[in-house]
């Protein structure tokens, strides 16, 4: 429609551009994982990269999640800067030992002698009728583990700009990309944009309550905020985007001001990210809270295939609206 000079891109392309840029800037950077090369990536993220960088730097691995994630750890120790793609979070359980017992623990366990500058990317989340084994959101598991940094880019800008600082981090970084974001369209970030991988960000300012979320749920929370505005409720939207270390200060600053909060994430409710955010709000803002913090999460059920059941299981704009209205005492 518009004819501005701003280039349109997608989240998928943004991730790809971020990887291309990193590989151009630093020859130690390489990509490995299942089907990242000839196939172009399970979700097409690395399409064309093997042609550009060759099969040495874009490495197809066998189906061996534990070995190739661990090989990424070793390669990082050996002076490389690997980006390991685990096709989806659903398969990362096979590599959990390497991530927790080696990557995350190594620096401390060795008294600071070794560090593991490794980036592990993976697709997460549901919403595409892929059923119980292909719809997990386990970022909370990673966010529990000292020694890891966990990033959840929820915008094209973050997808494009978080990878480089992640690669500069001497410690292992897990990046979760929600599968339903890949086709998201928007303007390409201006070159050189720097994005913080320590801090949450306010995506929409507001006064009446705070909606805290990240990643795949950001869009629906912004939609909900829009609709709340129509109802005369001014919701501030905080995108956590860094799940570990969690930027509690940003959340506290907002909630102590709005006095009300709803936390939204796509994990199962019990012990999902929202549990931690709620507990921290309790600790940081108790005397400023006017209502209990509510959570909108996925229902506690392995995600079903049928569309209507899956939709009923996942967080929705409606459920966020209901919780938000409850928090501000309307229809609550």
């Amino acid at each position: 429609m518009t004819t501005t000079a701003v280039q349109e891109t997608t989240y998928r392309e943004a991730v790809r551009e971020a990887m291309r840029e990193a590989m151009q800037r630093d020859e130690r950077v390489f990509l490995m994982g299942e089907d990242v090369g000839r196939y172009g990536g399970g979700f097409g993220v690395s399409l064309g990269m093997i042609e550009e960088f060759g099969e040495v730097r874009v490495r197809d691995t066998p189906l061996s999640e534990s070995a190739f994630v661990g090989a990424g750890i070793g390669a990082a120790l050996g002076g490389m800067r690997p980006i390991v793609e685990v096709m989806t979070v659903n398969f990362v359980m096979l590599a959990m030992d390497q991530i927790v017992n080696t990557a995350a623990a190594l620096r401390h366990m060795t008294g600071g002698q070794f560090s593991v500058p490794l980036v592990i990317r993976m697709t997460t989340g549901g919403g595409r009728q892929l059923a119980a084994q292909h719809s997990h959101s386990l970022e909370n598991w990673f966010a529990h583990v000292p020694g890891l940094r966990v990033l959840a880019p929820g915008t094209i800008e973050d997808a494009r700009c978080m990878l480089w600082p992640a690669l500069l981090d001497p410690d292992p970084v897990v990046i979760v990309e929600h599968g339903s974001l890949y086709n998201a369209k928007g303007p390409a970030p201006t070159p050189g944009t720097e994005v913080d991988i320590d801090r949450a960000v306010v995506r929409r300012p507001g006064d009446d309550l705070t909606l805290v979320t990240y990643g795949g749920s950001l869009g629906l929370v912004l939609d909900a905020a829009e609709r709340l505005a129509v109802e005369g409720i001014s919701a501030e939207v905080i995108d956590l985007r860094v799940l570990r270390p969690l930027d509690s200060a940003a959340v506290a600053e907002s909630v102590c001001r709005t006095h009300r909060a709803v936390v939204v994430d796509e994990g199962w409710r019990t012990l999902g990210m929202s549990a931690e955010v709620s507990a921290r709000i309790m600790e940081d803002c108790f005397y400023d809270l006017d209502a209990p913090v509510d959570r909108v999460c996925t229902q506690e059920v392995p995600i079903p295939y049928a569309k209507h059941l899956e939709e009923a299981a996942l967080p929705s704009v409606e459920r966020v609206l209901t919780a938000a209205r409850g928090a501000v005492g309307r229809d609550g």
Partner: protein
Amino acid sequence: MSAARRKEAAATSGSHAVAHAPDRDALYERMLLVRRFEERCVELYSSGLIRGFLHLYIGEEAVAVGVLDHLREDDAVVATYRDHGQALVRGVPIGPVMAEMLGKAEGVCRGRGGSMHLFHAPTRFYGGNGIVGGGLPLAIGLGLADRMQGRDRVTVCFFGEGAMAEGEFHESINLAALWRLPVLFLCENNLYAMGTALDRSESETNLAVKAASYEVPAWSCDGMDVLAVWEAARRAVELVRDSGGPVFLEAKTYRFRAHSMYDADRYREKAEIEHWRERDPLLLLRTTLLADGATEKDLEAVDARVTAVIDEAVAYAEAGTDEPVDELLTFVTSGR
């Protein structure tokens, strides 16, 4: 089904249990059923009735058909996400299978599983696993239960050649060999794991040799020739049942379609695909049948029969209902 009922059923399922020569017409019809079923699935996917991942078995039909003919009713099958063929050939009712693909309450899994997760207790069909290699440990566990309970059942576990690189393959076949568990490891070697060719996945590409290194009897067969599969599988199933220990059988096959509906199939040469299409299992058996005296008309009649069955299945599925949303949390636990 209770153990008693199953035993009884097994005793009466003569055709599956004791065939000493293949019923070629039946094999043909079964292969065609799978082929036409999946062709219909593609249409339904295009029209949006099937969603999620859809992995087609087209080109590989001879494997399931040749293998499963040797199972008794009380035997078990463990499949992968590419499971329509195994399910239908095993005898999972086609209407409920199609209803499952459409996410209906009438589906075998009441719409929870979809294409990748077909399960059926009465035929002991244990899915339908979306995790590559994920079914292998489960299969040896079924074998363990049989061994511990002194039953002479066989569990057939299907998996792709790509799965052999996973640690689960190694751990499972080793355990099966050590404990002598009655499991047939049935490797569908279609040369690719998504876009990854076998020689980029395994340092030893002779998969039977690889399996034999676990001290498991292992051999290969031409997976495009259903009669060859049938014969190789007959020996294999018999050996598992008689010896009580594991056997590995590789069926060399090929998928004619892309890995799933999302795959642009960039990693294979057109010529390679064409080459394999010449060995289409349906074509091969068709040629044999015609040479043996069947007429084109006979075969058309088979096609018509099969199509009618599928039409009915689709109609059943489309007439199906949506599981009520308030049933969402049913089946998470027993609610004991």
